[in-house]
């Protein structure tokens, strides 16, 4: 409240690494750009998928976001701004795709957590899914906005939370859902579920 806004401390080594990669990518280093793509694609994937877009369209959206970044690279100077920009573009595109497909395309079930896609690595997945059942059950009982928010934020490092929350229109202090409120709700559900069971 009182302090002037200093640069957000780059506590995270990963953020420092990203800053270096971003600078190098702006100077035309393909390797640095490739490393950023490898680093941040998992986040963008979850952003697109959490909007209810199918896997093939989500892949197209993520690829397109990276291509669009090239034209904007010179305007983006911090890793936090980079993550914010990427998330915004991905989310907007996913929205658009979802809307234009909604007459013929995937059902709203896709939007919620009901329909995990089949895909590779089946054995490990079954194991993980079983272990995650309790978490899954609790998550599924959260409001949809909370499900989406937590899914995305789980792929973001803490220095970027503020930026992400703004980009997701979930500003601090607003009435809507925040990571803290959603998480608090989830913890209550998990505690309740744990009574008599436990993991």
């Amino acid at each position, binding site marked *: *409240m*009182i*302090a*002037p*806004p*200093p640069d*957000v*401390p780059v506590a995270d080594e990963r953020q420092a690494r990203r800053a270096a990669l971003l600078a190098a990518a702006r100077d035309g280093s*393909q390797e640095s*750009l*490739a490393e950023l*793509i*490898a680093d941040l*694609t*998992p986040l963008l*994937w*979850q952003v697109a998928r959490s909007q209810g877009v199918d*896997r*093939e*369209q989500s*892949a*197209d959206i*993520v*690829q*397109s976001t*990276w*291509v669009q970044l*090239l034209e904007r690279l010179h305007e983006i100077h911090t890793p936090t701004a980079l993550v914010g920009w990427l998330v915004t573009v991905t989310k907007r595109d996913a929205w658009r795709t979802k809307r234009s497909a909604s007459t013929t395309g995937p059902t709203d079930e896709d939007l919620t957590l009901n329909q*995990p*896609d089949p*895909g*590779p*690595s089946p054995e*490990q*997945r079954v194991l*993980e*899914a079983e272990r*995650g059942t309790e*978490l*899954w059950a609790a*998550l599924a009982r959260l409001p949809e906005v909370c499900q989406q928010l*937590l*899914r995305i*934020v*789980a*792929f973001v490092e*803490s220095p970027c*939370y*503020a930026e*992400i*929350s703004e980009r997701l229109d979930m500003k*601090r202090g607003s009435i809507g859902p*925040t*990571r*803290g*409120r959603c*998480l608090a709700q*989830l*913890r209550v559900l*998990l505690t309740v579920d744990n009574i008599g069971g436990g993991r």
Partner: protein
Amino acid sequence: MSTFDPTADPMDGPWDDVDTAIMADIRRYWETVDPVPDDLVEQACFAVQLSAIGAEMLRLAATEPLVGVRSERTRLITFAGDTLTITINVSGNDDRSARLDGWLYPPMACGIELRTNTGTQRTESDTEGRFALAAVPAGVAQIVARPTGTDRTVTTPAFSI
């Protein structure tokens, strides 16, 4: 401009070890049930190399596996943009390569390049907009179309053969 309070989580209050653990669980959960496609990073890296030229990139419009054909790699993919649509039929050859038959809409004669990791193949579409490449190597590929008589460059996104 926002104020920065280092003691608070910028998203809403401080968070503790349990929060951290839960968030890690959520991440693992989604990584497991909805993993990033294996070749997405490679495709994106491939696509950004080309678009430095300032080409127009088409978007995936539809993809469908063709039922009843012998190779599961056979599929029909449509990429669409404001002024051009490219549909390709990919069918697996006996080796790991694939045959690629393409159609441009609107039909036009066009220089066609197919970029892959191992090099670029060139052909041309006829006036009906058809083109074909007999053996495209397995891996990531991208089509670059240069409509005859223009200086436009249109590309598909990178896709996997």
